[in-house]
């Protein structure tokens, strides 16, 4: 039942949004077509704006992977990670995720390309990316904007949230897709 609900959600979420948002917009007298085009233009700029960051990250990740250094690091941590049931190939993503949005985008792309987007590990990586956020970046931006220097316990709370998202993704994907 639980699996059915999440499957329904996955299938319905996007069609529902594509139907209801323009409908609500229309009834609220928004020029839906022109507004869509205006927003889509911003999407274009966003995709282009992240390109330099993505290049920097993918070059570095690619070198690290191709040299064998990535496999070496994963290999060192493998026994510990496997003892806890964590796929070792996801470990770099867990470390990168709170620090850099583009970096984790790059690592996820790596995983999707080498294992396939529909493999269990590919689905796990996608779920991790979708259910966590760049905690350190958010703390820097939000607190930096108002001149708060002592984040107190919020760093711990944010990282705990990321950790829960990481472990939770592995467990939930095993249950749903494993």
């Amino acid at each position, binding site marked *: 039942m639980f699996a059915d609900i999440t499957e329904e959600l996955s299938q319905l979420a996007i069609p529902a949004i594509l139907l209801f948002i323009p409908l609500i917009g229309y009834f609220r007298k928004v020029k839906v077509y022109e*507004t869509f085009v205006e927003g889509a233009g911003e999407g274009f700029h966003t995709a282009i704006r992240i390109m330099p960051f993505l290049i920097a990250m993918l070059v570095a990740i*690619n070198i690290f992977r191709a040299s064998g250094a990535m496999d070496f690091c994963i290999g060192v941590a493998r026994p510990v990670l496997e003892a806890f049931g964590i796929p070792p190939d996801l470990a770099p993503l867990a470390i990168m995720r709170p620090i850099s949005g583009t970096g984790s985008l790059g690592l996820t792309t790596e995983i999707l390309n080498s294992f396939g987007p529909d493999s269990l590990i590919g689905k796990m990586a996608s779920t991790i990316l979708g259910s966590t956020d*760049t905690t350190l970046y958010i*703390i820097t931006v939000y607190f930096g*904007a108002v001149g*708060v220097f002592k984040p107190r316990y919020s760093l711990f709370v944010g990282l705990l949230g990321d950790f829960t*998202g990481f472990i939770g993704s592995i467990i939930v994907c095993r249950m749903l897709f494993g």
Partner: protein
Amino acid sequence: MINAIWLALMAGGIIYAAINNKIDVVTQAAISGAESAVLLSFKLIGVMCLWLGIMKIAEKAGVIRLVARALGPLIRLLFPSVPPGHPAMGSIIMTVSANMMGLGNAATPLGIKAMQELQKLNKNADSASEAMCTLLALCTTGFTLVPATIIALRSAAGSINPSEIVGATILVSLTATCVALAADWVCRTLLYPRQRR
């Protein structure tokens, strides 16, 4: 921090390759990395445009306000230190609603606005107030209904069902948000209580 990591990946990879007599793979990897980044950015454009177009309609139609009205009572419960009528409350509700709708770009200015309002209530200006920590717990777990970027990424990688992970994502991020809020509550009331106003 990100500078150190980037350098570590670059230098670590090149030196490791040199030690293992594989220095020839570095050039190849660098060039193909740069090329695949460009290809990926272009593949992301379509879904990004589609999503931000729809979200622009949502923004103009006041959907964020509708979501905000629904979430309001729940969020007020989470911020006992903010007076109900204070402008900070409105900003917090808008931030959380925008995050939920996946409006990353719209959410950041709203979040900063909420922080500025909260700073006015903060008695100790250089250290985070309780309400600030709770807001951060909500934002850093990033509860999003539809993770558009990931769907785009999966589709670019040739997935047969790119949106398959949406249900899992909602479930996991909801759990992570609850865990972060619980930890925030424990820290706020048990571990680091500040003297009441």
